């Protein structure tokens, strides 16, 4: 019994780590820009494809593939923010929630269709990053899942260090807290928005790269997982990286244990019940900040 519980726990936190990364990106963008990025899933999908092709064409080393995926999607995110989102923000002013939603939905549709045209509709995967399994007693865990766990933790530590210990991170926090005051203090808000968007979608690309040895990818995989990202943000709270990590882990563990005990169909009901309870008790999420 202990072996099963522990196996489920390991599986749940590995899965939760991916959800956390995915949601953290969304949380970061929303926390700084007040933008619900409906294209977050598409960037996960693109990140996965970039990592897939890097591994198949350039190097089998997953760390290199993840880095390339992150950098390319980060750059793409910055370009999209500068060319598209910045204009919408300046035109719409304070009321950019709906235009932002429309624009990111449009970006999602375009990216999905371009991916379909470019890569086709067939599934692709990487069979494994590291073809080893750790077996202790009755507990088995693949090295891939261990890698995901450790890598996710490292990314979150790096993120926390970046946000709280660097000048750029302080600037991001300042803009998130009060955009106008930050502007008056000489912070280039547009530049911060662009970097934040790039970073947010870059985190989605990392999540996409990490799912390669677990799931087969295709052009719609981002859309199918988008609900998870929003759930992480609701659970953990907008703008909080720790909240995103906790929210993701809760989600992963809930999925693992409820599927085991009651089945995957009913597991979803428990999952949405949890979301409702959190919204009722703490609408800003577990670690979310209340609006000023």
């Amino acid at each position, binding site marked *: 019994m202990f072996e099963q519980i522990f196996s489920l726990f390991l599986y749940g936190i590995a899965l939760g780590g991916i959800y956390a990364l995915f949601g953290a990106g969304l949380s970061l963008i929303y926390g700084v820009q007040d933008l619900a990025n409906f294209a977050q899933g598409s960037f996960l999908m693109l990140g996965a494809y970039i990592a897939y092709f890097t591994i198949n064409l350039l190097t089998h080393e997953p760390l290199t593939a993840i880095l390339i995926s992150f950098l390319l999607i980060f750059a793409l995110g910055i370009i999209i923010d500068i060319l598209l989102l910045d204009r919408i923000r300046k035109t719409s002013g304070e009321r950019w929630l709906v235009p932002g939603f429309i624009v990111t939905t449009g970006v999602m549709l375009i990216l999905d269709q371009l991916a379909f045209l470019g890569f086709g509709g067939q*599934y692709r995967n990487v*069979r494994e990053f590291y073809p080893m399994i750790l077996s202790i007693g009755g507990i088995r865990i693949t090295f891939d899942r261990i890698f995901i766990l450790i890598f996710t933790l490292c990314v979150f530590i790096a993120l926390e260090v970046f946000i709280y210990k660097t000048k750029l991170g302080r600037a991001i926090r300042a803009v998130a807290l009060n955009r106008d005051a930050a502007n008056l203090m000489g912070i280039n808000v547009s530049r911060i928005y662009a970097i934040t968007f790039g970073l947010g979608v870059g985190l989605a690309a990392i999540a996409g790269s990490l799912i390669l040895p677990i799931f*087969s990818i295709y052009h719609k995989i981002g859309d199918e997982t988008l609900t998870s990202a929003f759930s992480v943000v609701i659970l953990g709270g907008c703008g909080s990286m720790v909240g995103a990590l906790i929210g993701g882990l809760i989600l992963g563990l809930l999925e693992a244990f409820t599927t085991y005990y009651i089945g995957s*169909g009913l597991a979803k009901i428990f999952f949405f019940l949890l979301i409702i309870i959190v919204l009722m008790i703490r609408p800003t999420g577990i670690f979310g900040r209340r609006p000023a």
Partner: protein
Amino acid sequence: MFKKGLSKVYIAIVAIVVIVAVVGSVAYYIWFQKPRVEIVRIGVVAPLSGPVAAQGKYLKQGFELAAEDLNAKGGILGRKIELVFGDDQTKPDVAISLIERLITVDKVDFICGGTSSSTYLPTMDVIAKYNVIVLLSIPASSSFDVRIKENPEKYKNIFLQDLNDTVWGSFEILWLSNTIKEGKWHPRNMKVALIAEDTDWGRGVCDTWNEMIRKHGFEVVAYEVVDYGQVDFYSVLTKIKQYNPAIIKAELTGVASGVALVKQVKELGINALLFPGYSAEVHEFEELAGAYADYAIYYGYPVPKKWVDQLLKRFPDSDPTAAFWGYDSLIILADAIEKAGSFDTDKVREALLKYPHKGLWGTYVFDPQTHRAIWGEEYVTPGAVEFYQGKRYFIWPERLKEGEWTYPYHDFIQPPS
């Protein structure tokens, strides 16, 4: 947002573009369509996007090849075949709209295709509204059979090319029981775990297994239902692992689901004879799964090698085991029309029921009560296929056999953990 003058110009440009598009479409539709007397228009429904888009693509290729072959011989009763494709997205609401559009807007004469039972069961009442024959290529839920048998007049125009879930489930059990009786396998225990996709097809096959496997002395220790398109089975498999079953029978549709299942079974160290179901049909399965697919068993369809070569020459990326469905659908329909000597729905329906129709897979004879193809050695019958070292080959029955069954755990051997 814009200056006043610019706004008027903008509106004018948009209006002109819209008018030209509408007028152009209508003109094309009216003046440039071929006169109906030259062609027979056949609607083809398939999932061209979504989790089973790969199967949809191959199905489409099968139809295209059949149309080319038939048109090269003069078409059907002198008319060239024109295929009108529609994407059902594996969604019932989309399939319903698609069927209606094909009949009322595209004015097709017949409809073929379809892969998912759950997608097409809801379309039965829509089809019943129109006097157009619909030959469903792959939907195999026995719910179709039941409804057609109970309402023969209402659903008279629906035909089902594939065998039903009861037959498919029974067939695997038939192979299993023969294998045990012949002493080729001594399972370490008599436990079976079932994993059913939450679709009519998935549940239908696993319900058949649940009922029939017990008659052969097995105990069903788990019956898990998973979502359509599910790709993470860790929790389900962790649960199943505690029962140590000698057999795991899954019925999953999407190739990603099948690949994930065989991989996660091995990762968790579960040593069981694995049946992944329909998900193993497309050739991406062994490409994506690699060695994780080794020893998995599924039901295959023997199609002539000559035709496979022809298909791959025309469509190098195709999958014969999926494409042949489309090919045979059109061949069956064409044969029925030729035998009827007419495109009239009632006459073609009568011909479908009255005559046998030779296809790649075998001879299709439709049961008059259920309108479904009959299973049998002299009709259409599958074979058991094993995956091993990146290849798939028939292991049963004898007349189809291409290789020996290589499952290593034959004689009460406890597999390594």
